[in-house]
């Protein structure tokens, strides 16, 4: 445990699985909490894979003898946690789990609404064991909604929130290529844990908060609802932005893509100078934001023409950034892996994983008092910490609120 982190001494009973919930408890672990990932030995987190899923998720494309411990997705999202094997359908293990939960400050889950209580680990059951417990339940849909008992996936949250619609244009909606609703739900859940802990510090009270993932994305584009409710929402433009002209992602001559966002006249002057030197002459009137916005189609066409002749987008980005023009090349996995900024500033942490080997893992964007929140351990092997954690439990049986 890193005593220099704010959640040192906080213990989390982690009933999350797949991506959204584990993203939330990954943040808690990064901030110093001891996160105990409870896993059924026969049905562990499905993100562990089963040796029959995508080989691209495995070291050297090899499932190995131990596939459940070698999955890249699981091993990314679960750094810094401990794994405890418990079958929450076995009376014996339920008893152990309840004794363990009684030692925890926080319970977090991402089952559909009502499941946590049916398992015997809902707030009403746990408060008998630990009155100040903070329970954050990430449901797919709100427990009070017509869809309460439905399961949900990131694509559904994307679509239901308005995100898919807003990502597209008049030709149709566009679904975010990764399930962005999952990490967003986890991040709001982690925030809810923090406010619950702060309130507990002040009042001694626990709480039960639900984070409906179907609605967690909505506050990420509150201004769109403001515009819509005022009746002033504008036309959607793919990769456009009301404050940017030009603004978009453009192909370059070497088959790559370059993102450019010009938000003021100073930035435009820098862009125009480079364009002009490349033989694409900006038109009179484009010096002002209003002039560019009023002639947007031609501005965008000129920028596209200019950038389609660029053979070294990295050099262009460096030149534009020297004048503080927001610009970047579109990065894929290899680019990210080699990114100088991320590497030189310590975003990746090399971790020795007993089954997957030694590899760098991405971190979180947090620094506290100048130090990164670096994971102190790789993702756990299935059940790796069972003996250590359960062996330290008090031995007396619980006398209140026995699970039925």
């Amino acid at each position: 445990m890193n005593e220099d982190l704010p959640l040192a001494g906080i213990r989390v009973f982690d009933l999350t699985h797949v991506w959204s919930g584990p993203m939330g408890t990954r943040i808690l672990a990064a901030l110093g909490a001891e996160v105990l990932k409870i896993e059924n030995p026969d049905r562990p987190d499905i993100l562990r894979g089963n040796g029959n899923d995508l080989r691209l998720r495995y070291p050297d494309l090899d499932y190995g003898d131990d596939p459940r411990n070698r999955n890249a997705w699981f091993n990314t999202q679960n750094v810094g946690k401990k794994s405890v094997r418990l079958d929450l359908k076995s009376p014996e293990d339920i008893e152990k789990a309840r004794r363990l939960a009684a030692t925890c400050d926080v319970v977090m889950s991402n089952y559909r609404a009502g499941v946590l209580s049916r398992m015997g680990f809902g707030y009403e059951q746990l408060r008998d064991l630990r009155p100040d417990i903070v329970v954050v339940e990430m449901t797919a849909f709100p427990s009070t909604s017509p869809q309460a008992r439905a399961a949900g996936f990131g694509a559904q949250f994307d679509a239901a929130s308005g995100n898919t619609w807003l990502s597209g244009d008049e030709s149709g909606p566009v679904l975010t290529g990764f399930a962005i609703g999952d990490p967003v739900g986890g991040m709001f859940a982690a925030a809810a844990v923090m406010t619950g802990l702060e309130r507990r510090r002040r009042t001694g009270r626990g709480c039960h908060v639900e984070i409906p993932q179907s609605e967690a994305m909505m506050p990420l584009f509150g201004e769109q609802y403001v515009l819509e409710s005022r009746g002033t929402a504008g036309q959607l433009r793919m990769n456009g932005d009301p404050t940017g002209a030009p603004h978009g992602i453009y192909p370059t001559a070497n088959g790559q893509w370059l993102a450019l966002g010009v938000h003021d006249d100073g930035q435009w002057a820098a862009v125009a100078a480079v364009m002009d030197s490349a033989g694409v002459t900006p038109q009179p009137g484009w010096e002002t934001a209003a002039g560019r916005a009023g002639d947007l189609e031609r501005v965008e066409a000129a920028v596209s023409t200019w950038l389609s002749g660029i053979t070294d987008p990295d050099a262009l980005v460096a030149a534009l950034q020297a004048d503080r023009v927001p610009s970047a090349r579109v990065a894929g996995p290899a680019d990210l892996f080699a990114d100088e900024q991320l590497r030189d500033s310590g975003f990746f942490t090399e971790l020795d994983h007993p089954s997957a080997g030694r590899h760098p893992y991405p971190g979180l964007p947090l620094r506290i008092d100048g130090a990164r929140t670096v994971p102190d351990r790789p993702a756990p092997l299935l059940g790796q910490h069972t003996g250590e954690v359960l062996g330290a439990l008090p031995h007396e049986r619980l006398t209140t609120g026995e699970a039925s």
Partner: protein
Amino acid sequence: MSRTTWLSHVTVLDAGTSAAARYCGWLFVQNGARVLDHGGRPGNQLTEATLDFLDTGKERAAGPPVTPDIVLLDAPGPAPSAARLTGVIDAYGPEGPRADWAADEVTLAAMGGAAAYTVGRDGTPVYGFGLRYQYLAGLYLFTALVAELSASRPGSHEVRVSLLETVASVLPYPTTQYAYNGSDSLLEQSGPRFVVACTDGWVVVYAGLAWTAITRMLERPDLDEDRRFVELGDRFGHVAELGLLFDAWGAGRTVAQALADGAAHDVATAAVRSPEQVLADPDLSARGVWHEVRGGGHAPTIPNLLVTEGVST
């Protein structure tokens, strides 16, 4: 949904000029804190509607000086006031070769790896819209600052959040995959998920689970044993053909019929809703999801459904 008053004992001085810092201040407002707007000149990506959303509930910092518990600002600062906790937003980070580079949402999404995941119908990478990644940086900052509050550690503390790293941190596993086996492919991290046009709108379908459920929904039992689709890994190799199957299915159905088909066969589907449709959702309104913003109009609250505030110990 519900705002809380759980941070009503906290005073925050919001000296942020970026979307991220101001969003962090907004989250404190949503949790009951007193947030004073220091009146910094907002960045050039913040529209009037955006500022009305982000600054609703904040007070203008006027009158006698107040010693805040928390100061929010953007690098390089300086902080306008001392406080026990300081929250700072960095575009890229406090150090590193690009520490001084300029950023906006589209360049962050591009450089941070998110834009490569999403492509339009012509193959162009799509960053999305708005200021979502910058808001997520504000959410990280809020979370870590409240963690510090709850720890109540002696002395003063500083929390910093990088916008670029925020984007990279919310991706599935691109760099781990590359480190594990050298693959630069994103396709397998993207679904298979589809936007399907129906006769009166659009639905999304997640096609990553049991294949026979999908063939039943598509009314194509002849594809039950089709080797292109039975195994998930093979499905990615034939994702365009799979998309055509869904297109044909959706073309003959209304959104309601498509959703009913999905429910009947346990295939995850959802209607693609416009902001107008979301605002008109009676269930959201009944649960108090919306709040009025400065200057008129409505915006969503934080997604916290407060079930119980607990018992006294």
